[in-house]
């Protein structure tokens, strides 16, 4: 079993004719993902990697029965691309890979999202993968293995690192969700944790957070109050000096103690979540939880 994606997920790739869109469409297909369409304005009727391209997402949903969209559109147009996917009938999952979408564009997308039943993952995220079934995004498929550990992370590459540590000792994954590091995202930690909690085949969850914001603290409270599935955690940015911004929009430590690695680690531990000092130690914790 899995969350968000399954055998019936049929994907339209927005921006499939661009360099990244094309490369990762090939990678997704190679992984066995059911990519059924591309959508690029003005390129309807073309083919990329054997996949038919439509002018609109709605066209891809109607003609090719696409029910999930993956956005590889450049940042200036990516907000609009997200709107298009949210607006298309039949699309119930949108995964936005694009990094650098203006925050105000995302605020409007987020506003629209509240009116729909569609799940949005990202932006600025690696995507979603259910090993052996489908990957939507840029995650390197070969490091994942099938199993029963769910993963949710704000950082793409950190997800890969932790997955690598799990796979290397024979622990497979049910689904991994990279929720992205931008200030405004669709599915957040709690949204992903809810999904994992409801999935009978996810037996443990790894949550990877980082300094900045208070999402991890809120997620920790949610875990304490609502989750039976055990969770292990990791927080990046222990050594970050206060007041400096470390890449992700969220990854800034204020001087006041909120949003620091320590406040997140404490919140998690107080809610029964063991936190690893290193990615390898996270895998140790998962082993203990299973």
């Amino acid at each position: 079993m899995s969350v968000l994606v399954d055998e019936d997920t049929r994907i339209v790739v927005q921006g499939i004719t661009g360099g990244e869109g094309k490369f990762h469409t090939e990678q997704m297909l190679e992984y066995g993902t059911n990519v059924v369409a591309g959508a690029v304005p003005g390129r309807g009727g073309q083919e990329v990697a054997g996949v038919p391209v439509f002018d609109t997402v709605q066209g891809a949903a109607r003609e090719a029965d696409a029910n999930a969209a993956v956005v590889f559109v450049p940042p200036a147009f990516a907000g609009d691309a997200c709107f298009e996917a949210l607006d298309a009938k039949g699309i119930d999952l949108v995964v936005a890979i694009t990094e650098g979408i203006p925050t105000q564009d995302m605020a409007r997308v987020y506003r629209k999202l509240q009116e729909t039943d569609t799940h949005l993952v990202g932006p600025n995220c690696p995507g979603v993968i259910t090993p052996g079934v489908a990957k939507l995004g840029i995650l390197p498929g070969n490091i994942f293995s099938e199993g029963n550990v769910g993963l949710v992370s704000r950082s793409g590459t950190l997800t890969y690192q932790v997955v690598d540590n799990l796979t290397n000792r024979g622990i497979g994954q049910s689904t991994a969700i990279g929720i992205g590091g931008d200030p405004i995202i669709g599915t957040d930690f709690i949204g992903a944790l809810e999904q994992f909690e409801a999935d009978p085949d996810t037996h443990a969850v790894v949550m990877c957070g980082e300094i900045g914001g208070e999402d991890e603290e809120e997620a920790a409270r949610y875990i304490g109050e609502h989750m039976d599935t055990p969770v292990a955690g990791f927080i990046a940015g222990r050594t970050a000096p206060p007041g400096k911004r470390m890449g992700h929009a969220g990854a800034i430590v204020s001087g006041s103690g909120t949003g620091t690695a320590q406040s997140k680690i404490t919140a998690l531990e107080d809610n029964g979540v063991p936190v690893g000092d290193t990615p390898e130690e996270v895998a140790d914790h998962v082993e203990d939880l299973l």
Partner: protein
Amino acid sequence: MRLHEYQAKQVFADAGIPTPASQLAETVNEAVDAAEEIGYPVAIKAQVHVGGRGKAGGIKLVESKEEAREAAEDIIGMDLKGYHVSKVLVEEAVDFVNELYVGVTMDRGEGRPVAMVSTKGGVNIEEVAEEDPDAIAREHIDPAFGMHPFQARKVVYEAGVDREVANDVASVLTTLYQLWDDRDGADTEINPLMITSDDEVIAADAVMNVDGDALFRQPEIAEMGEEAAEGDELEQKADEYGFDYVRLDGNVGIIGNGAGLVMTTLDLVDYYDGEPANFLDVGGGAKADRIANALDMVFSDENVDSVVFNIFGGITRGDEVANGINQALEQFDEIPKPVTVRLAGTNAEEGMEILNEDLVTVEHTLEDAVQRAVEYAKEVEA
């Protein structure tokens, strides 16, 4: 991207927000002439991106030509918390009876903009937010509709602003929101917004932070931002190369892809008793030349004794990274500092085959790579 006060004030004034008479000066004589023209008392204010300028001696109130000269001599060229002051704003000193705080920012937790007003202006608003959060009235704005005039009035009344000036303050707030919206603002603030004895409202300071991701559609702001660029040589170099870079105190240089993984690498260097020299994220999908630029950056930091590359490819491809490392290192007769590389993920195997092992040390796990880099750094120090 943050504008200087004088730039932000210009943007605010152009939009119709009242600001004090002021002139920018780059020399002591220019500053004195400006003060004479504006008429005393004037404030002489260092134009650097530093909080608490006043306390640090970067803002002085002067009453005469002699005082103006003295203050300008003190401030121009001074080192203010690590920043060199090359410009001052000479500004009419407003005689006020009250100071307010007015701001618009993105509430990331809510995913919506928020307008804020407080009668506790003129002080560090972050401290107010922490110690007395109720002293700041807040109103969330639906980005689809923008700020309705009633919302501006509502938040102003809730903050307890005097009735005589409430409408004018609401009007300033409405303009501020519109600016924030039109100019892709991140934080846009007036602190203090001064109220004079004649019930005039005047923006005595101006903060304008603009979303760096939106500069492609804000060419005027982008140009101002280039003028406002600050920081040491390495940080300016990082801006040129377009890296997320933070300089730290240690001697192990760190290059990686993705903020979370780079931070984890820093944490691991610390965990294995090393000291990180920097945070450098090459971002997603870096090509060979970008990798070479990253190495150039870290080699330029003389505190660095050893470099560790930690790349876990997703959208970034290991072969591109390997080519970049080879390209950068092949220029040297002798590699300046030992480089340890760990490549995983997309095209990592191809990358490993390409990497010139005469030039770098290859490790297969994150832990091994970090430990090796820390050892190298210790050998150099010893």
